[in-house]
């Protein structure tokens, strides 16, 4: 496998991002290994989504370097052209499905825009992706407004995977899902990651999915990565914010009561 030459899927060095006078990401460095699922946690409004959006080029940066698949990535304005034929796929928090297109057309959209292929093959690929994310071929004719929250996320994932990207960014994939659907979705991410050899960069607050699917977890506080490693290492971390995050009242509720 030629792709395996480069050990890191994403390398971020000394990244600075801000708005106006406010610095949101402050000299942050982060490596995402190829083929791992990295979970990113942080306070609400603490810059998790900003970091993700900067890497994929939606927000201009003030300084620092970003490498994706060993290639340096330019700054926001000329970034759109660099994502040729889908280096990455993105699952937005609300799905961001095109509401005027059917589910099938949504999944075919990246294929249609980036590649030249027959309509028959495009239909087959779309159906294949639908089935891979656990939906029925019949769902392909529905419109996004007719989908439930869980289905919307699945379709958005299918669209993100349409071009078989090497990296998938997931912005709070399980938010707004009930625990059963969230668990199913976690399992789906894990399966697809294995099947397709994906690198997954996941922004999440879901302690359960951090625990079950993530190979490593990075904690973002004060604009920096304050801790990174497997979940059990983070649980041992001495950083006050990380302690508060993983040992707060809500996370304690997940542990079985002592008495």
């Amino acid at each position: 496998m030629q792709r395996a030459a480069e050990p890191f899927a994403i390398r971020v060095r000394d990244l600075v991002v801000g708005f106006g006078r406010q610095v949101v990401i402050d000299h942050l460095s982060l490596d995402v290994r190829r083929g791992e699922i990295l979970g990113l946690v942080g306070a609400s409004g603490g810059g998790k989504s900003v970091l993700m959006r900067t890497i994929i080029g939606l927000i201009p940066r003030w300084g620092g370097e970003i490498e994706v698949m060993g290639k340096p990535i330019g700054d926001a304005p000329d970034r759109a052209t660099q994502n040729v034929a889908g280096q990455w796929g993105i699952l937005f928090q609300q799905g961001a499905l095109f509401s005027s297109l059917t589910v099938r057309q949504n999944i075919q959209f990246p294929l249609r825009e980036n590649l030249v292929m027959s309509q028959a093959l495009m239909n087959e690929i779309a159906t294949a992706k639908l089935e891979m994310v656990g939906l029925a071929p019949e769902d392909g004719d529905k419109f996004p407004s007719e989908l439930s929250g869980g289905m919307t996320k699945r379709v958005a994932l299918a669209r993100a995977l349409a071009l078989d990207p090497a990296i998938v960014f997931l912005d709070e994939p399980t938010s707004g899902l009930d625990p059963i659907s969230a668990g199913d979705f976690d399992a789906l991410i894990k399966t697809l990651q294995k099947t397709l050899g994906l690198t997954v960069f996941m922004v999440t607050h879901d302690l359960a999915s951090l625990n079950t699917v993530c190979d490593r977890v990075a904690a973002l506080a004060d604009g920096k990565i304050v801790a990174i490693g497997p979940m059990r290492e983070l649980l041992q971390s001495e950083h006050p914010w990380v302690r508060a995050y993983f040992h707060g009242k809500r996370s304690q509720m997940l542990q079985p009561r002592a008495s």
Partner: protein
Amino acid sequence: MASEPVLTATPSGNLLELRPEGAWIATNVARLEDLTGAVVPELDRSETARVNMAGVDELDTLGAWLLEKLSRRAASAGHSSEIIGIADNYSSLMEEVRQVNRHNPAPTPAPNPALAKLGDLGRASVGVRADIAVFMEMLGALFMSLIGVMRRPRTLRFTSLVYQLYRVGWQAIPIMVLITFLIGAIIAQQGFFHFRKFGAESYTVDMVGILVLRELGVLIVAIMVAGRSGSSYTAELGSMKMREEIDALSTMGLDPIAVLVLPRVAALVCALPILTFIGSMAALYGGGLVAQLYGDMSPAIYIARLHEALSVTSFKVGILKAPFMALVIGIVACSEGLRVQGSAESLGRQTTTSVVKSIFLVIVLDGFFAIFFASIGM
């Protein structure tokens, strides 16, 4: 980085061995489709097919599916087929692809086109009835909440009413003045140009005055308001509906009609007669300017001719229509806004419908008023 994909077919007796090599990934799709298409005839002829994937060094869902499709094609013809030489890191992908596209739903048969057109016609007719029902329902609801406000005047949303008046009335004045001024000027120019042939230039003033006051002033202003304020009402209420704000209001025990619709419609009903008056004056001014510059008629004569040609009746006919047109625009705009479903597309569609429908109804209403005023001799 990606090596060129190749597919070699080696027949040996009854066996056809297919050896895909190189990068079977989505970026090479055009080439891959040609390759797989080319071997299909040979595949159909041979009794046993074997796909040897040992030479594939890159594979993604698309490539995997194309190979799976080849093997499936052989299998479907009653021949035996197998896939061998799958690299370990691709085995789960091939396994996954083997499961997909197994049960394609039967395509729904296309309906008879003539019947489909008839069906559309029928649905449209039923739709008209539903439209009338929705309009009446909104009129009734508005009337009920008006009665409620009259009983308890303090429940009137006064701030909202004033704000809406500011938006649809005050802020609309510049554009209304500009448009009606131009319309008045154009009518006057056309009048002078054509009436000159009969030496009846002075009658241009009669035409401008009566047309503007009775018909055009109110009509132009109403159409502009439908496009400007009606559409914004629909879009506002529609996006509130989409974001469940209207449901939130109802659950707090508030009537969305009283809170949202009544101030908007009331503001329109107040603003449209005022805008009509201002617009008519601007049109008459435009006509007068053209009369002086193009028709060589002094302002004094223009005003004197207007004085002779017009009566208060013409003014009344125009201004009386304005509140009714405002009511129609407001009701259509608000009821279409409340009919918005979940999607952004539906919001756009409803906004278009609102503008088209309210302009249409304004013109129809104008026709009824023409008959009515004619029969009472105004």
